[in-house]
């Protein structure tokens, strides 16, 4: 999955702070981005012969080596329910008002598919697929305490990749895929014109009270852009019971371009009737995308299988975002605008087990994943949000002998609540620092659930049979392995932003 829907998950903010003091433009927020930990219980895209599913396109296209030769297709449809809440705490309880808690909930869908065609030459077969490599959304109240960070925002990317998978005998395979990705981003948030004006004055000479509703304007950002994604996948079965999988995903940075519109507070039109402040400018944002490396080791135990996963994502690349605003009229918005994320590298570990049920063709699987927060507490905001996640999933899959598969999984995600006692944001900081936003102190909480429906179809059963026979002939094969017999459930993986 690529709607990394988790709660917490992430957040890679994308948007520019726009230097408009007090606002943040950051980006998206709750990114629903995938992490290994959220992978579904119903199968694994890594280690596997028949374990491949649509997520393999993202995580490890090397797994697409393993479906039996012939035409094979898989579709994953995931849905996430995410609820977020935030209780803002004042920096100065004596002089700041208390804030009402804010929350929202959303349901996010995610669709991915993968196709493997018959082998053409020396074990090489064309593969292609699509998925959502990057997604996130928030829908906070427009008048909530977080409004200067964000109220509504989303980012969604969709990638279509094509490439080839090659096997080097029955136990080893490689794949590589490339393709374009399209990203759309929208962001809106309140802007504190008072804070912005204050920021132009010397320290200590600020005139306006911060977050005065009468000085509140609004910013809307719309951007889109194209980029590319490349992936390398590897599959190996060095021992009859041991399968290894690894995937390296190299997304190119997304060059986003669009417009930014700033609506001034109504009071300004009263105070300055001869001047209309409604600047619309162009904005470009080089949205850095992190390289990720995912690995899995699966071991056959009886008729079942257990597996361990480790994932690393180079999210430090998203430490700071820089947007550039041009051609705004008036020009006060123009220039470099920083958004500080403070991301560190991200990692996750998980364990998976799958065992056949007593009914023909049914497999049950479960998994547990842990993924710590990769943004320091002090950098957490309503738009730059990630939680430490504990995820438990259960899934069941049915597969017939004709190669038709249906899987269903449910996952419960427990985001560890966050108390932010110290915030890196200070509206007195100069806007160009990227830190000139209201303090994000407070308590953040979330809840999330996910469901996954996966369907796979194979059209050329003869080839499958032949392939299986060939595998058998080459040695310990999927067909002969207990795990293969068990056809363990697929894992639906979500994918990092």
């Amino acid at each position, binding site marked *: 999955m690529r709607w990394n829907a988790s709660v917490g998950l992430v957040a890679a903010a994308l948007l520019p702070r726009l230097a408009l003091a007090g606002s943040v433009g950051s980006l998206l927020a709750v990114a629903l981005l995938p992490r290994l930990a959220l992978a579904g219980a119903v199968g694994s895209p890594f280690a596997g012969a028949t374990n491949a599913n649509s997520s393999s396109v993202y995580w490890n296209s090397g797994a697409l080596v393993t479906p039996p030769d012939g035409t094979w297709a898989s579709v994953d449809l995931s849905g996430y329910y995410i609820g977020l809440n935030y209780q803002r705490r004042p920096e100065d309880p004596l002089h700041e008002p208390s804030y009402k808690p804010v929350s929202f909930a959303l349901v996010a869908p995610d669709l991915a598919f993968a196709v493997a065609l018959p082998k053409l030459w020396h074990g090489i077969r064309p593969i292609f697929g699509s998925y959502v490599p990057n997604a996130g959304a928030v829908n906070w109240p427009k008048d909530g305490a977080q409004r200067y960070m964000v109220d509504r925002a989303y980012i969604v990317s969709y990638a279509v990749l094509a490439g080839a998978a090659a096997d080097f005998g029955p136990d080893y395979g490689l794949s590589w895929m490339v393709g374009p990705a399209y990203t759309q981003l929208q962001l809106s948030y309140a802007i504190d014109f008072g804070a912005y004006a204050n920021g*132009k004055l010397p320290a200590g000479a600020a005139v306006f009270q911060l977050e005065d509703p009468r000085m509140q304007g609004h910013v809307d950002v719309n951007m889109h852009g194209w980029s590319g994604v490349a992936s390398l996948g590897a599959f190996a079965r060095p021992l009859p019971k041991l399968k290894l999988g690894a995937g390296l995903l190299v997304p190119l940075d997304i060059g986003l371009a669009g417009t930014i519109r700033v609506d001034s507070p109504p009071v300004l039109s009263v105070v300055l009737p001869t001047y209309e402040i409604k600047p619309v400018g162009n904005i470009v944002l080089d949205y850095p995308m992190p390289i990720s490396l995912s690995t899995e080791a699966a071991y056959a135990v009886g008729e079942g299988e257990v597996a361990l996963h480790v994932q690393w994502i180079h999210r430090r690349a998203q430490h700071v975002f820089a947007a550039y605003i041009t051609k705004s009229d008036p020009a006060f918005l123009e220039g470099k605008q920083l958004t500080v994320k403070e991301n560190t590298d991200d990692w996750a570990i998980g364990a998976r087990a799958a065992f056949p049920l007593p009914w023909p063709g049914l497999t049950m699987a479960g998994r547990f994943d842990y993924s710590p927060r990769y943004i320091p507490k002090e950098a957490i905001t309503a738009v730059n949000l990630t939680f430490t996640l504990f995820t438990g999933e259960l899934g069941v899959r049915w597969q017939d002998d004709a190669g038709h598969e249906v899987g269903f999984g449910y996952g419960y995600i427990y985001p560890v609540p966050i108390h932010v006692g110290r915030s890196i944001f200070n509206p007195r900081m100069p806007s160009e620092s990227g830190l000139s936003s209201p303090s994000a102190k407070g308590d953040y909480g979330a809840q999330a659930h996910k469901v996954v429906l996966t369907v796979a179809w194979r059209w050329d059963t003869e080839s499958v049979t032949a392939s299986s026979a060939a595998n058998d002939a080459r040695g310990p094969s999927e067909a002969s392995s207990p795990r293969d017999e068990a056809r363990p459930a697929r894992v639906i993986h979500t994918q990092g932003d």
Partner: protein
Amino acid sequence: MTPCRSRWTIGIAGLALAAVLQPAIAQAVCPPNAIPNALSGRLDVSAFSILKGPLLPKLPTNLVIPELPISPFVGQTITPRQGKVTFVIHDINFAPEDKGVRVTVALDVRGTASLDYQSIIFTNTVCDSAFSAVNVVFDAIIQPGVNDCVATFPFAELRVIVAPADVVATLANCTNSGSIYAELLKLVQGSDWLVSMLASAVSSAITTMLPPIVDKLSQAFFSTDFNVPDAGLRFNIVPERVTTDTHGLTATFAADLVLDPVHASSCMPIGGELPDRSDLTPDAPIFSDSALSLVVSRPLLQRVLDNAWLTGWLCLDSKELNIDLGSYVAAVVPNAKVDFKIMSTTAPTLELAPEPGRHARLATDNLTATLSIQIGQGEPTVANAAVKASIQGDVGVSTTMRALTLQPREITASSVQVTVPGASLGISQESVSGFLQNLVLPAFGKKIGALPISSSVLLTAPFAFCVDRIEAAPGQVRADLSLWPIEAEDTVPPETKLAHPPLRPSPADVVLDFASTDDMTPDKFIRHTVWVDGVRQEALTPGQRLVVVGVKGGVRSFKVVAVDVAGNEDPTPFVTSVLVDDQAPVITIADAPLGGFDGAPTTVHFGATDDRTSAGELTFRYTLGIVSRANEPDTMLVQGDLASEHSVSFSDLPDAAFVRLTVFGKDAAGNEGSAQAAFLVDRAPQLGCAAALPPMSLFACLVAWLAWRRRARLRGARA
């Protein structure tokens, strides 16, 4: 291009002169509302010698001898006819004593007369006589006093000392025989009548002529300088008491102010009323040893302040001072014209010497701040802020500019109410206080520096005064002055000399330091007249430092003429061209920590360019401060100069601090540009047990979990 303007051409020096010479004003009328003991002046004994310079040429040089008959012997009368006496005054001295001021005049007397000699024997004998007396001494005590607000200067113990041996008389052309001539000569030389006649003439001349001279001088002084024309104020000062002792002469005056009814000011408060200050009483004056010291009591200063306020003083108007506040809002509202005016709607209260090193503090309960924003040709939007505030400032003397200065130091607001037409904005008293203190005040201060309230060099016939020092005490302000006689006979012009070449290039405020000299005028009394590109500046600039502000960039022509206290102008002006650079260097931060920074030693690199100064000649400094979450200036951590490698390194920054690094670059003209980088020092990012590397994170998380488990068990056990 406007030179520093004097808003107060008050004459403190004039006030001092008045304090000493006021007794000569005979027309004084006791003002009903005058403040008693409001003003005191003391002329030190050391300054009395200076008085004689201007007085000597004004004393009488001749006198017609009255044709009054005298009878040296019974039956004899001598009547001088057509007699004239000529004085040659060698010296005059004033020496204060307890009884008064002793005046001693040393002079020679020469005269001629036709002596009509009548006796029983010889009648109608007429001789032409010529007589002289040398080493004549006039000695008297002037006992000053005050009667109905009029100072009196009666002479006492008047003596004219003429030694008979020093008297010589000759007769000629007698109408009778030689024996008669000899007899008459004996009568003239051998009797006291001639001595008495000479003494009477000297006494009459001095006691008659001296007071009018003093009167004339002081009247001229009062009529020209002793007022506050910008505020429409004139002083009404009458003497109360004049005393002397061996240290000098002290005069005490009652004073009131006369308000010019036709005066108008854009800052004049509407419907303002003066408060009752009757509870203020003057302290006893404390004088210094300076040649002339003037002590102005707090009640008088308060009254001056009250009246000045009533006529629109105490008003900082960005328009008048040509201060552009639009630059602060240019980013949001381009091309906006922003004017700011601060004035008090009630009379301010004066506090003198509120703390060591401070001269005065003005407090007002109602300070009105008016902000006007005009965009294009549209009607300006005016925001009004009513503020309770106090202003603290220093009064001082600029030795280079020879000016009395008032420098606002601090404005604090205790409450504020802001109104904008059609809207209400949330502006707190803290924010207005900060705005006034940290923006408006520096803006005014940067533009005007110390606001000259009066030239410290004042020319009032027949003396020039120079204020050397101002001291404040809780009850009074004392000005120490030196004085210099204006020699009417001085016709030699001064020589205009530049002390050192001006900066090349020079900033927009061009500073020219001169070392002009004169044969008689001391350097500190010399003034200059300045032309810039052929345009004469407003007024003579006292002192040797000339500052012409706001000169546009480019090569500008300056012509400077030195002027001495007698008004002689140097016929050979100093002419020079000055390259003016009115643009500051552009500083850019090349790299600096972004966002959170782990606090490790780091180096910030920056770049700098300037339109007239090469990169190698630029100089740099930096400040590193902590940005508060409150509306207050940064807390300074460290500051210093930088070498030219365009980098600054620092370490050991405090954790969890918002840090602002500001790099300043100064060009050869002294223009300074700046750039800043701001970041948060975050030594220990709160990632919990998560870390960048999974193995370490796993271990850290395991430890954290064990610790949590142990705490949970302990809690359970305690429960």
